[in-house]
């Protein structure tokens, strides 16, 4: 829609025109014919270093064709089930190299993207319009390694596995796969928990025991006003772990992942390998329960998982307080080679940025990173660490929105609808963030009932865009129109021994003598799934001197002198090829 050329200074109308007239041909010129050594035939124009970055995001949802709206049915004030919200996803369901959009809700919708910023509702033709249920979240991953990403939809008293039929339609294979409906499934994720198996297992978090029976409180009184009850009124539910047996069959294997040792009331979750074994650990953000960190107890493949949430330091906030964990994301925000963890939380609580000190030990660095003051007043949900300005340091976006629709009557300083926040990583030592929300465009400042967040470069212009769920409104498709951004590199992984999606692979780019470590993951955030392509901001450097991929299988591939400002495909044990 806004052109695929990395021309940073083109005005919006001009870029719109370029999109209509010649984006496809430009795309072909730039990405179509990769050279053997990874250098593009047509190198992009030099990009100035990221000195004059001005964050700018524009909501283009309506113009892009996302005619969707979330509405909360039923009485008001809202109860805890009504207010839980929904998720969304960026995925490439048909393998055309362009991101599509999945919007999850009672009416789940799929929009096919053309890579130029246009989306067409394909819910009917793909069979998604037939789905019925109170769907909340999603996980995208190619569980059968057929090259087409499949979808798991979580929900209240539901949960369906949708097999992707060669990018044409989805079939509900829940029953045949051996999956059961979950009592209150929230965030969910795919991960190769047995390295080298090449199979993606599934974890689905469950929230709490809730129904409309008389014994379960629907509303509670706060300062004399009836409103949604806090989570502590509902007994926590544990998640469900399904091991992929291959041939489209799954088996419940909670013990293997130490699920019974979790705290329950899980909302956000994400896998990341924390040591060289490649076995992923699972962090779960629990609502008013200590956070979980399920880590493999040993290096061997059969080692059982243990819950080290509290003792690792990610169970609580800096001061040892339990918080209302909502969303979370893994990412190496200080480029020290280890994946750190961000957890979004409730109003009045610092949103926790846990610095990974190694050996599965973390220090809450929220205050040092200057994230506490700006985030505390909000109820935060979806969150992603991503490099919006391509300067090589992961920035942060957080969607906010209160859970009590009448909160203003209870607390005159609080609001139901809250603005989304964007934090720029100053890339200093120790790493600190700057709240740039107010200068990032008026659409970001629009108060919404923010819930799910997904990131992905839907127009393949190298600037990562953002999709946000407004629980009582239309989705926000925030097109990244940041000026003065740095060079970049996008990597699509294709596993051969590992899972085909490459989920769990660790990609390291050496740029200007510094290493940047990124994770191939779609999970994290809240109820949502993001673009699986691994994105690197290269700053002032137009190429990565070395690019290594450590696959879940344990195999490592290395590429030298990889030119940037393009998307590439890396096949496990193979070479670098054109994207898609």
């Amino acid at each position: 829609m806004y052109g695929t050329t990395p021309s940073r200074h083109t005005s919006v109308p001009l870029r719109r025109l370029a999109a209509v007239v010649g984006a496809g041909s430009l795309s072909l010129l730039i990405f179509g014919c990769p050279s053997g050594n990874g250098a593009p035939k047509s190198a992009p124009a030099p990009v100035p270093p990221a000195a004059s970055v001005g964050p700018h995001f524009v909501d283009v949802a309506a113009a892009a064709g996302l005619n969707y709206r979330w509405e909360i049915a039923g009485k008001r004030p809202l109860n805890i089930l009504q207010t839980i919200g929904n998720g969304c996803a960026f995925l490439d369901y048909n393998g055309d190299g362009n991101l599509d959009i999945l919007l999850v809700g009672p009416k789940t919708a799929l929009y096919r993207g053309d890579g130029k910023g246009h989306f067409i509702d394909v819910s009917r033709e793909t069979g998604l319009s037939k789905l019925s249920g109170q769907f909340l979240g999603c996980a995208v991953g190619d569980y059968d390694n057929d090259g087409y990403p499949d979808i798991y939809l979580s929900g209240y008293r539901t949960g369906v596995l949708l097999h992707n039929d060669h990018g044409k339609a989805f079939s509900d294979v829940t029953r045949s796969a051996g999956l059961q409906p979950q009592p209150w499934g929230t965030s969910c994720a795919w991960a190769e928990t047995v390295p080298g198996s090449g199979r993606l297992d599934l974890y689905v978090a469950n929230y709490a025991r809730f129904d409309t029976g008389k014994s379960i409180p629907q509303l509670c009184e706060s300062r004399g006003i009836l409103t949604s009850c806090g989570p502590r009124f509902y007994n926590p539910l544990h998640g469900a772990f399904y091991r992929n047996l291959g041939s489209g069959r799954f088996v419940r294997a909670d013990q293997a992942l130490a699920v019974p040792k979790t705290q329950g009331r899980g909302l956000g979750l994400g896998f990341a390998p924390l040591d060289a074994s490649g076995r992923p650990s699972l962090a779960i953000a629990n609502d008013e329960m200590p956070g979980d960190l399920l880590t493999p107890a040993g290096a061997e493949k059969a080692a059982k998982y243990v819950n080290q949430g509290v003792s690792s330091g990610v169970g609580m906030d800096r001061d040892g307080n339990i918080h209302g964990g909502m969303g979370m994301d893994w990412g190496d925000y200080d480029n020290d080679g280890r994946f750190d963890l961000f957890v979004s939380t409730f109003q009045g609580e610092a949103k926790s940025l846990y610095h990974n000190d190694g050996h599965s030990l973390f220090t809450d660095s929220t205050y040092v990173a200057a994230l506490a003051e700006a985030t505390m007043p909000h109820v935060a949900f979806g969150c992603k660490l991503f490099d919006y300005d391509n300067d090589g340091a992961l920035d942060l976006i957080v969607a906010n929105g209160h859970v009590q629709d009448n909160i203003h009557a209870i607390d005159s300083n609080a609001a139901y609808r809250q603005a989304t926040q964007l934090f720029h990583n100053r890339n200093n030592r120790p790493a600190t963030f700057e709240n740039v929300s107010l200068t990032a465009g008026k659409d970001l400042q629009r108060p919404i009932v923010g819930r799910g967040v997904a990131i992905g470069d839907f127009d393949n212009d190298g600037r990562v865009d953002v999709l946000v769920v407004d629980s009582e409104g239309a989705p926000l498709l925030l097109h990244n129109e940041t000026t003065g951004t740095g060079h970049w590199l996008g990597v699509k992984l294709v596993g051969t021994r590992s899972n085909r999606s490459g989920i769990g692979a660790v990609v390291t780019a050496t740029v200007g003598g510094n290493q940047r470590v990124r994770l191939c993951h779609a999970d994290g955030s809240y109820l949502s799934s993001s673009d699986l392509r691994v994105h690197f901001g290269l700053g002032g450097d137009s190429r990565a001197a070395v690019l290594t991929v450590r696959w879940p299988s344990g195999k490592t591939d290395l590429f030298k002198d990889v030119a940037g400002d393009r998307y590439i495909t890396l096949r496990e044990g193979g070479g670098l090829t054109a994207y898609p």
Partner: protein
Amino acid sequence: MVRSDAQRSPVSTTGEPTPLDQGSKSDARRFPKTARLLVLLFLLAFAAVLWLRPAWKETTRREAYLPQLEAEALHDPFDARLEALLGGRLMQAGDYPQAAEAFRHAWAAGEQNSMIARALAACTAAEPARALADLKLALQSLPQDADLRRTMEAVSRLDPHPAPALLARTILPDGPEPLVTRYAPGSGLNRFSEWWGRGHEEASGFTTRQQWAAAEPNDARVQRLWGRALARNRRFQEALAALQHSIALDPASPETHLALADTLDAAGLTSEATLEYLQCLKARPNWLPALLGAGKTYFEIGLAQIAGASYLQATQVAPTSADAWIGLGRAYRNTGVDQAKSVAAFQTAGRLAPEREDYLDDYADALRQAIQWPAAEAVLRRRLRTSPEDPLAHYMLGMVMLNNTPTPERQIEAEAETRTALRLYPHSSLADIQLALIVLSHAQPKEAIPLLTDALQTDPFNRNAMTILARAYRQTGQSDLADQISKQADQLYQDQQRAQVLESKEAKQVMDPEIHAALAVLYQRIGQSKKGLYEQSMARLIRSDPKTAAEEMRKIRSVRDNAIAPH
């Protein structure tokens, strides 16, 4: 010199004496006589002052309440007689360690006699060896003292390991009263003081009230005054007895119920005090002292929301009462909702009483919770300018600095502030935890562990200390200990959540004694013993006297619903 108008005459322009000059000469002649009179008067006055001043001092000391004596002793620590009297009054209050300290001061300042020596030994009777050593030391200084010798003999006849109470009685058979009488004899102005005191009963002194109460045992008002006097001297059991006696004489007196409530509160019987304040408010719904008292005790029990209702009502009844606004600020702060209102309440208090600084720590905490960290820091620095020995302010300043732009330099300052807080108040679990967090951030878990275990010794139910300790154990490779302490923290947290859910149920089913009883148990398990006792008493009241209980509950509920609603 006084002149009449008749003496006035025009001023001479010739230089001749005028009648006025003549008059002046006449005055000058009289001057020696007037002057003599004046000098005499002056001397008399001077003599009177010379006599009156010490006499008045003796009388006021005789009438003084314990806090006054403490303040005076702080001001003049070398006044041996004052220290001796203070020791006696403290002994009467049952505060033997402090009394011993005062007697030591008295002895060191020169008041070396057998009475002081025996009083000191009696105060240390909890450690018989020490009491005996005190007596022996005194005997070395006063080898000929017959009293001391007799005391030593009596003590030597006791069992080798005597019970402390028996030992104290043996050393000082008549208790502290003779000592107090000796060091608070008063003066010839005693009668004047008593006369004045009866005319200004609220300002009357301790001995006046004591004698008055003895003289008029059936006067409810006099007994109330006496009860108040005993409470001011921290003789709570006697005070409660006097006040109960007063209530028996005049059951409807709100003043006496208020005195009883204040005394119960001062004696640490917070739940009982709350009920008494409610009695007062039943009689006088808008009575400021009762509203303030109810607010304070509700707050202490942990019912900040209801405390807020009382204080809110107090601010409406007395909008210029700084106490009411400060209480309201504290209550709002602890409800955890709408911190801006807490800040606003403290700001109002600041305008009403700009000289007051006793609430600044609370104000800073409200600012901290309202995420106004620079403002909180400024308030704490103001507090520390005038109260540099305030450990809470040092601790909070450290905390705010760790929150607000914790650059390495500020982290160093925050650590210094936290260490100062710990030096000033060594057993603060909060400061221990804060310092542990700081040293943990420097990757020094071995230094953090003793701090956290100290914190847990002071506050065994501190979940934060547990979880941070678990991490510290992990860091030092003690995974088993880490798991163990994590489990404890989990259990505690689950109990805390259950308590919160039950609190909510209790609000809807106020007359269900089972909920109150279950809450009492849970509160005990999570270390909130005051709340536990309150719930226990409520459960008991509902079972034994449901009508009264329902009335009390209705009152609590109506106060909360009417006053805490958003305004």
